């Protein structure tokens, strides 16, 4: 009994300690973003005395963050929608046909989960230059789709198997074609997996730095992470501006997460454990 109580006490201590370790750096970044350069000299732990909101507008202007925000939204939204459409469609026959070609195609998609992007990076650079897609959104969007498909096909295929086949058979008897059966009957049933994939793919793509670093270098086409990165060269050690940019760039996803946190936690949980 004594051992049990001591364990409980230790566990709570670790939990509380980690909560503090998570909070402190974020809080300090927030404070720094609100300080003037003079206040910054007062040490990292000092509280901002007067809130310098102009850091945010300055970071917004200097980092051209309005443009990057729009770019990030356009790229993430189009890539995520296409991943979901393409993978839910492909997984449908793959999960239903008990033929060799279906299994082979399924494994073909799955093999993509083991491929590091670095392996494809150099040839992709050549391919996109040949297609004249460097600096255009289509390139990264297509790469994100290719990278996102394996896991999405995998999750959808597993989920289709839990949907009874009678549903689509009766739809066919009622004269519903295969495309309409998929679009208006099956796709809505996939909602749990769709929301998991929506969140996980948005997270990966929104925060990705590597692909834009290679393919979207120009000021007008860069995404949020590149825009934040641009502050290192130009404004060395202007921590207040860098952190203002970091906060502007992180806020959309953090807010989205706080709104959808319940679905997020359940989504990852069901997706990951089944996987």
């Amino acid at each position, binding site marked *: 009994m004594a*051992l*049990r109580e001591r*364990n409980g006490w230790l*566990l709570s201590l670790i*939990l509380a300690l*980690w*909560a503090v370790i*998570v909070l*402190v*750096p*974020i809080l*300090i*970044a927030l404070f720094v973003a609100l300080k003037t350069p003079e206040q910054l000299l007062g*040490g*990292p*732990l000092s509280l901002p005395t007067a809130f310098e909101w102009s850091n945010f507008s300055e970071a917004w202007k200097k980092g051209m963050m309005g443009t990057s925000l729009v770019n990030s939204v356009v790229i993430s939204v189009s890539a995520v929608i296409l991943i979901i459409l393409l993978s839910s*469609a*492909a997984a*449908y*026959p793959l999960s239903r*046909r008990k033929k060799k070609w279906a299994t082979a195609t399924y494994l073909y998609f799955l093999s993509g989960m*083991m*491929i*590091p*992007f*670095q*392996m*494809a*990076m*150099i*040839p992709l650079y050549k*391919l996109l230059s040949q297609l004249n897609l460097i600096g255009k959104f289509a390139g990264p969007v*297509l*790469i994100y*789709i*290719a990278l996102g*498909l394996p896991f999405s*096909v995998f999750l959808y295929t597993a989920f289709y198997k839990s949907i009874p086949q009678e549903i689509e058979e009766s739809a066919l008897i009622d004269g519903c074609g295969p495309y309409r059966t998929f679009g208006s009957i099956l796709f809505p049933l996939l909602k749990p997996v769709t929301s998991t994939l929506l969140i996980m793919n948005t*997270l990966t793509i*929104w*925060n*990705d*730095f590597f692909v834009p670093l*290679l393919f979207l270098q120009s000021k007008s086409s860069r995404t949020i*992470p590149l825009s*934040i*990165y641009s502050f*290192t060269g130009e404004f060395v050690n202007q*921590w207040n501006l*860098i*952190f203002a940019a970091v906060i502007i760039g*992180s806020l959309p996803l953090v807010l989205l*997460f*706080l709104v959808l*946190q319940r679905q*997020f*936690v359940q989504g*990852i949980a069901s997706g*990951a*454990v089944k996987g």
Partner: protein
Amino acid sequence: MKRFGTDITFILPAFAVFTLFLVVPVLSGFYYSLTDWNGLNPETRFIGLDNYIRLFNDSDVGNAIRNTLLIAVCLTIVKNALGLTLALGMQGTGKIQRIMRVWYLVPVMLSALAIGYIWAYVYSPSDGVLNTLLEAFGLDGLARDWLGDSRLSIYSVIFVSVWHFVGFTMIIYVAGLQSVPSDVYEAAYLDGAGKWSMFKNVTFPLIAPSFTVNIVVNMIVGIKVFDTIFVMTNGGPGTSTENLSILLYRQAFAFDRMGYASSIAVIMFMIILIFSMIQIFALRKREVEH
């Protein structure tokens, strides 16, 4: 036959994008690793295994492989130990547990880039948060140049990666723990099992699927780490934090040695492949069905 035609229309779009933008590039990566392509010169020669021979004699590559494995193994161990501990404390559906779960997940939402900046500031030697805090508690002796000391920097970087993603590992364990039926615990409790023996004999075997996922995923993520290192140290000081991803990027885009960089990518791919195979076979055996 008509049904097969319809099936094709469902599969083809995904198949085409996946093949064109991932499979074909990967296969040509294998080919480029056998050439001296330098990115600028349109004339590329086939040089057989020369790149690989050079690679085995390149001390930078040996160093990068050691760093890659060190990062991957440390990340996997620490994230799983901490993630499982946090998850054990998160059991139940109370309000505090729900809030803490969200709290621990906030760093997961941030980009590795943003986190790299935040921690570069925390770690900075003279006016950094960590050293200032240590001094405030009278622990001046523990203050270090966390990223500038070549023996420490790799561990400082590993810690940042743990901080970033441990919430994700935790959530997967939380899900695994929730799937353990409560009557199993009750039965073990009635049989007089203590807390530790309950964990070892009941909980752990039943959460083995989450354990497999967490080990494999964290290992693969650990081998690939790029953004965090790129922003915080860019492989330095010296080459003390240079892993295969960073070396590969430098060889390809700073030195334009595309052929050589491709052979490094192949090595990285092999490491990932070998690890995932071993882990999937070794860990799957331990799982139990319930």
